[in-house]
């Protein structure tokens, strides 16, 4: 066998590793091993790539490759290790974006190498696809990162003539792409790349912060497709298989995520056009000052201590305040007093599906105290207290009652059915989706303002004294 055949064989094994890894990642038992398997497969494949004589032909290029890898690893490892659990979603967004950028750059360099030789139309098409999708994924992920990191507003960004502008950019990209196909001109390809970056930005801007996780999943799928396109241009089976696997499974995962929010994917991506106006209009319309009921920690402590059943509904506010340990302390204290306590976890509580489970697992909350929404909702009507900690949109009855609302149709935790509702909130600011919550004004509702960790600590003390 020739050297190339050996390398291809290793690539095949790596591809099998990736398939098994994805399978493992979809079951709680094998998820961690699945990820390790994928990492090993990737490392072996990367290692064997250096066996290609072309890769080692020029010492300077080889050295630069190793230097670049060292730089990348030196940045990535600490970033991934030190990032707070609450900031994981934006970390995924940024790592996804750079992958898309890498795929686009590969396609661009291939084009630079081959352009003088008048490449065949199908090769230019492969390259264009890689550049376009990779660039959209890169700039789109950057905006998603900015939204999640709160470098910019999490609300949908809309401006006049938005759809017209989007249309013009879209048409321009198609025209430039056709021009590149016909002429094989480098400047035209570069212009296509730049406009694709713009497209990524304007595609993501109108998507509301609460929907960004679904968006990241979609962009993840896009990057997979861009990698597959690079595989076509480089005649590399491993890139085609890995990229396509991620592209296909990512698309399916994206649809599952939007289903978990009770929405269609197109609704998630395009609902901002028009619906935002009604949402803000509704909030302003009921402009007469309404009063909310606030309580002292002592009042609420007594309420909790003498309840039979308390349901804790955690949200992003709990995560931000790093209050998961204190929440568990309160739950344990109540359980010692014989109160039935469980956590009701909305599928998108936190910033991403499953995010809250990860955070509570970090605080060693046992699995059997965590109930998924479908399991928790039938029990809400019999609960004495729904203790909503830093959550808002996921308990907003507007999702059930207000057809004009942007979150209408999203399944929620039915906190409104509990006999009493206690909100631990930082302020009256609306949630991530930017919509007012009727439940805050309900007669059954008591509010306790402050940082979740702070208020929970006070509640723990109050329950001890009750």
């Amino acid at each position: 066998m020739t050297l190339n055949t050996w390398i291809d064989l290793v690539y095949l094994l790596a591809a099998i590793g990736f398939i098994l890894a994805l399978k493992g990642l979809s079951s709680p038992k094998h998820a961690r091993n699945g990820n390790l398997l994928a990492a090993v497969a990737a490392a072996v494949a990367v290692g064997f790539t250096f066996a290609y004589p072309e890769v080692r032909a020029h010492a300077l290029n080889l050295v630069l490759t190793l230097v670049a890898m060292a730089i990348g690893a030196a940045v990535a490892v600490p970033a991934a290790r030190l990032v707070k659990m609450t900031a994981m979603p934006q970390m995924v967004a940024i790592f996804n974006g750079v992958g898309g950028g890498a795929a686009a750059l590969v396609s661009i360099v291939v084009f630079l190498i081959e352009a003088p030789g008048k490449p065949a139309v199908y090769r230019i098409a492969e390259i264009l696809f890689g550049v376009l999708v990779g660039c959209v994924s890169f700039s789109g992920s950057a905006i998603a990162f900015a939204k999640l990191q709160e470098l910019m507003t999490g609300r949908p960004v809309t401006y006049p003539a938005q759809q017209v502008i989007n249309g013009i950019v879209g048409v321009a990209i198609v025209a430039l792409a056709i021009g590149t196909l016909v002429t094989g001109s480098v400047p035209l390809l570069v212009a296509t790349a730049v406009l694709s970056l713009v497209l990524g930005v304007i595609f993501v801007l109108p998507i509301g912060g609460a929907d960004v996780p679904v968006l990241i999943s979609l962009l993840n799928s896009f990057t997979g497709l861009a990698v597959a396109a690079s595989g076509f241009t480089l005649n590399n089976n491993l890139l085609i298989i890995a990229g396509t696997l991620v592209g296909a499974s990512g698309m399916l995962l994206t649809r599952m995520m939007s289903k978990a929010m009770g929405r269609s994917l197109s609704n998630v991506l395009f609902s901002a056009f028009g619906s935002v106006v009604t949402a803000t209009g509704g909030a302003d319309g009921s402009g007469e000052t309404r009063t909310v009921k606030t309580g002292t920690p002592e009042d609420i402590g007594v309420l909790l201590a003498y309840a039979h059943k308390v349901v804790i509904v955690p949200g992003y506010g709990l995560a931000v305040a790093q209050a998961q340990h204190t929440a568990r302390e309160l739950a344990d204290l109540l359980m010692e007093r014989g109160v039935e306590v469980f956590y009701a976890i909305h599928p998108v509580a936190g910033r991403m599906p499953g995010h809250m489970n990860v955070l509570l697992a970090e605080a060693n909350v046992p699995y059997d105290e965590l109930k998924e929404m479908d399991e928790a909702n039938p029990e809400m009507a019999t609960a004495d207290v729904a203790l909503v900690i830093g959550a808002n949109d996921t308990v907003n009855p507007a999702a059930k009652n207000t057809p004009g609302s942007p979150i209408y149709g999203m399944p929620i935790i039915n906190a409104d059915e509990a006999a009493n509702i206690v909100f631990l909130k930082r302020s009256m600011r609306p949630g991530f989706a930017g919509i007012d919550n009727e439940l805050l004004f309900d007669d059954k509702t008591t509010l306790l303002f402050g940082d979740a960790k702070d208020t929970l600590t006070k509640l723990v003390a109050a329950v001890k004294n009750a």
Partner: protein
Amino acid sequence: MSTGILEFLTIFVLAAFVGNEVIGRVPSILHTPLMSGSNAIHGIILVGTILIMGEARGTVQITLAFLAVILATLNIVGGFVVTDRMLEMFKAKPAERAAKPESGDGSGDAGPGGAK
């Protein structure tokens, strides 16, 4: 090279079907780790960037390829490490939770069987 395109298309189509089948019915608590894990898998573009660096000539090509290798390394290394950290949290630690010794029996810490 042009005979290869059909072969590659075949692989592409088959891989698309596998990708759709393999993740099956994933529970919603694993949506984020799965996304993150597949994010790391497409970091295999690193292989592509290494290959292209081998063929790059001249300052422009080499600079772009250099940048591509850095970005791809960020994707693959960061992706796997972040996913592993997420999944680390899923390990149930029942023993740690029941660590409070009920009574000093001497052998009390040996058997976590009666925890709860």
